[in-house]
């Protein structure tokens, strides 16, 4: 266990809070606002990092038609049941804040979007935040094709991110950095998003935000239980 804790601390570096996200995860989408609100409440910065989920490796794969019928699939009944519940669950929380979460019709390779996150991050935290706000909603409304670099460039521009040089970054250094960030995280035990690295702990899922807050606040008071709840209100 100590070896693992040392690895997490090395991975976290000097940032008080590191959060791994992936555009194609509705749970990562839902985690952004409460994570920001929690961090803002205690006055700490967040270091966001992309973690591109390799969904077929653990949850099977499938492609659906527009009506949601499986065209090709390599999923068991229990995997389908879990996936359907997850989307239903994400949708009901999204509905509470007026956001749209439509089920995806294929398992996206979101690595290009992850590289775009790294690109935006290089231009500052505010720029990165704007990019997140621009890229998540249309993707989850099925209005953004993240396989299309032009569409991603358009989204970067909408977020007022400088795009000059993005294409060569995506084909070169950006891809290398993306793959390194992913492999380092996976080797350290990151397997899903959102994942939080905080103090000497690592947690998967926004339900751990109360504990993340408790850790960042110096472990004062009773340790909280898991909860999907609001912060900053």
């Amino acid at each position: 266990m100590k070896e693992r804790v040392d690895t997490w601390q090395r991975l976290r570096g000097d940032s008080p809070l590191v959060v791994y996200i992936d555009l194609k995860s509705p749970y990562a989408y839902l985690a952004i606002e409460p994570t920001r609100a929690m961090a803002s409440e205690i006055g700490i910065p967040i270091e966001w990092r992309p973690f591109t989920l390799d969904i077929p490796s653990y949850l099977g794969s499938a492609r659906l038609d527009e009506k949601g019928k499986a065209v090709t699939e390599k999923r068991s009944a229990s995997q389908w049941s879990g996936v359907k519940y997850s989307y239903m669950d994400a949708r009901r929380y999204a509905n509470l804040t007026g956001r749209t979460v439509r089920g995806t019709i294929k398992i996206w390779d979101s690595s290009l979007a992850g590289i775009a996150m790294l690109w935006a991050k290089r231009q500052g935290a505010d720029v990165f935040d704007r990019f997140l706000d621009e890229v998540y909603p249309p993707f989850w409304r099925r209005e953004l094709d993240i396989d299309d670099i032009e569409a991603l460039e358009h989204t970067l521009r909408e977020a007022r991110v400088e795009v000059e040089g993005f294409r060569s970054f995506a084909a070169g250094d950006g891809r290398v950095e993306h793959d390194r960030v992913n492999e380092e995280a996976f080797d350290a035990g990151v397997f899903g998003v959102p994942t939080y690295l905080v103090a000497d702990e690592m947690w998967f899922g926004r339900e751990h935000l109360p504990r993340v807050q408790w850790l960042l606040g110096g472990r004062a008071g009773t340790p909280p239980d898991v909860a999907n709840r609001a912060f900053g209100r």
Partner: protein
Amino acid sequence: MSVFEAGNRGLTVLLDIRLPLAYLALHPAAALAEECGVEIDFLPVTDSPLKPPSEPFPEDDRGVRHRRHRAHAIAREIETYAAAQGLALDGYYRSPDPTTFHIAWLWMRQRRDARLVPFLAEAFRAYWALEFDPSNRKDVEGLVESFDAEVDVFREWSRAQGPARADEWAEELIERGLTRAPTYLIEDEVFVGRQHLPMIRWILEGRVGAGPI
């Protein structure tokens, strides 16, 4: 009549004694129902047993490593949040057949015995202290007897109607797609995991104000 219809309570919670996260759900759910002044119903479900992290091998593919990471994370979660609740859990990965215990559970419940929650609390505590085997008839009858719940009547019922009742119940859950613990049922909504308690509270309190996110 469906076991659900026989209940007709405010909040229904499905638990599996063999799952640590179900144990962590028991007391907070009972406390929430009491705070909100609603009836709570606990019912048994047979979930997949928890799997231990596999030993690493150089040829492990990403899926195997993913499942190992997840298994470690679940173990850390259990340890951390059990400590926060002041609970001690031993032997996360046991998987006895829970049917004998489920029969006793359904019996206590159909009698509308007010001791159902203390009965479950003691069963879960004893199971996680390695003092109770839910597949062992003597252990289960001993538990029923310790609650002074007419053990002779239970013994007869558990041999006659009990097994069929437990089978019907298990089939009903599968038909409804309810196979995980803890699962919360409220107003036609299904929630898996105790992280939903703020949402469940919000629903129980009439969905007043902003939702919990």
